[in-house]
């Protein structure tokens, strides 16, 4: 009885630990090998860097031989601007769908939900045509527009569910207080769905940061390349500069990690503040 009670949580932890190891292993491998010399990488890829293999040549190459700073700032601005647009427009649309009953609101919600099911990449050809027609090829604006469209359906879906759960009394109390509908949204609804906003932010930013597809098609120019695209120059048909690839990948992890920490804090704070009634 006692043993079987203990096995349950142990089993769960064993499974979770295994998953964590599997998930973290490639990242660890990348980070570990980025600090090694080429010989060190190929002789024993699984070893930690030591005195003989430690080498920062990868980072030096990345910084010296490519416009990594440009890629980096491109990635950051595309991610941050898309994220802000997704959160703002998504929250506003979600609020409208959750709170107001207008003709066709259900159809509209369904239409937006379809975006979750159909991958945006299916529309690449027509997207490219549109971007060309608008004269936005090789601009970051093109990427921001596409990523905003890509992120909105899920954002609206999640936020709408959260907003529907906010007690009616709160909105009605605000209306009795003479609070305008805009103000209700900004001052009452948004602060209350902060945990949901953090969730949406995390789910939205990671695919944007990691995307290779759209930068390759819509903005492959040297000035507009993002980090994921920029790294490709180190991968050649015949020779791949593994030091540089691994070093740039390691660098690319940093900003997204920082953003994640910021949002996950919001997430936890939001959850605990709601728990105490």
């Amino acid at each position, binding site marked *: 009885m006692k043993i079987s009670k203990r096995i349950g949580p142990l089993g769960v932890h064993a499974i979770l630990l295994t998953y964590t190891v599997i998930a973290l292993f490639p990242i660890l491998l990348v980070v570990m090998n980025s600090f090694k010399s080429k010989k060190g990488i190929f002789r024993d890829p699984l070893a930690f860097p030591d005195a003989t293999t430690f080498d920062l040549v990868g980072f030096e190459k990345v910084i010296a031989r490519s416009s990594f700073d440009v890629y980096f700032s491109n990635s950051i601005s595309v991610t941050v601007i898309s994220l802000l647009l997704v959160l703002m427009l998504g929250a506003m649309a979600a609020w409208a769908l959750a709170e107001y009953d207008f003709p066709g609101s259900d159809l509209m919600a369904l239409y937006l939900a379809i975006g979750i099911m159909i991958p945006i990449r299916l529309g690449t050809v027509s997207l490219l045509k549109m971007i060309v027609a608008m004269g936005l090829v090789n601009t970051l604006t093109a990427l921001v527009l596409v990523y905003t469209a890509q992120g909105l359906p899920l954002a609206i879906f999640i936020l709408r569910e959260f907003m529907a759960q906010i*007690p009616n*009394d*709160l909105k*009605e*109390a*605000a*209306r*009795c*207080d*003479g*609070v*305008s*509908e*805009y*103000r209700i949204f*900004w*001052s*009452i609804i948004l*602060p*209350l769905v902060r945990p949901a906003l953090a969730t949406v932010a995390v789910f939205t930013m990671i695919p944007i940061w990691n995307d290779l597809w759209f930068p390759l098609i819509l903005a492959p120019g040297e000035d507009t390349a993002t980090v994921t695209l920029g790294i490709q120059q180190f991968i050649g048909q015949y020779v791949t500069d593994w030091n540089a690839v691994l070093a740039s990948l390691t660098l690319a992890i940093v900003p997204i990690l920082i953003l994640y920490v910021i949002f996950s804090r919001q997430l936890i704070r939001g959850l605990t*503040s*709601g728990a*105490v*009634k």
Partner: protein
Amino acid sequence: MADITLSGINKSYGKVEVLHGIDIDIKHGEFVVFVGPSGCGKSTLLRLIAGLEPITDGVLKIAGNTVNDLTPSQRKIAMVFQSYALYPHMTVYKNMAFGLTLGNKGPLGGLFGGGENKKLIDEKVQKAAKSLQLEDYLDRYPRELSGGQRQRVAIGRAIVRDPNVFLFDEPLSNLDAALRVNTRLEIAKLHQDLDATIIYVTHDQIEAMTLADKIVVVNDGNVAQFGSPLELYHHPANKFVAGFIGSPSMNFLEGTVISVGNKNIEITLEHDGTTVHIPAHPDTTDIGDKVTVGVRPEHMQEGTDLSFKLKAKVNVVERLGDASYLYLDNGDKDPLCIKTDGHSITKPGDIVEFCSDFSAVHVFDATGNALSRTTTDSRYTAPQLNIKN
């Protein structure tokens, strides 16, 4: 002055009509309680007055102006909700001040502020906090307060707006019994201090009786009766009000009219065939009509001292100390209840003789409407109170 007039108020949700032509006249400074069973429409009526739901038909006037199409804040009402509805992410101070910081001027409906100036707001909030003993809690968040304190904050938020009308939607339902009594007294005191018109919704008839200047008994979307608490208690207009006001509720016995006089009526009861002479105006009832007679438990006693005598078996005895309630066998109908002395030694299974005064008896015709009583016995009629207004 903020008189409120409801004339012919109808409310429908789709094809379902939930309020059927409500007419109520509320004077400035009155404390009016809407009371009725769950689902009778009393909360809907309050929300119509608040402006949270559109009125389907009829005219609502506040202070002489028709306000059907105005928003809640334009109607200058303040509402206190059952769930308190405090903004969870704001401190007590901000909760109370929030409504004042916004004006309706400026772009996007005052999104960027434009309300009253800070000093004036602070003055109002501090004053309200003082009167509600919330001064020490102004920096706390609602989650750090007890139920009673949250309720006071909700009331404070209403006070600072200085409204024409206060609306309370079952404000005490979420409090425990002791706190409920305290808060009830505070609300009564608040009414005296503020000299404001208050409309209060509850399903608890004790709250209704203790707080109200006037009670509106709502039943199934209609006003069953509108009057002072004692009027309702002594002169219920129909069987529903008679049964709803008073606890335990009124005893009902079926009977048939056997003779009608000018100011009295003679009825044979189905219970045991007794004949009773009730001082009531017969109105349109005639010999042979089915009627219901009603007597309050507190107007009955054990023994045979009074004019209206009955006999029945005791099923249950509830001893409360100061009084005991005897529940008597009444066939397949609701049991009869007598409020008797706390020292009564009657026990379940006993056959007791009990009695009441014919003057204490109410008669209701087949449609449930009360026949007007003609008794002059001051024990069974509403006293004339000299209340202000």
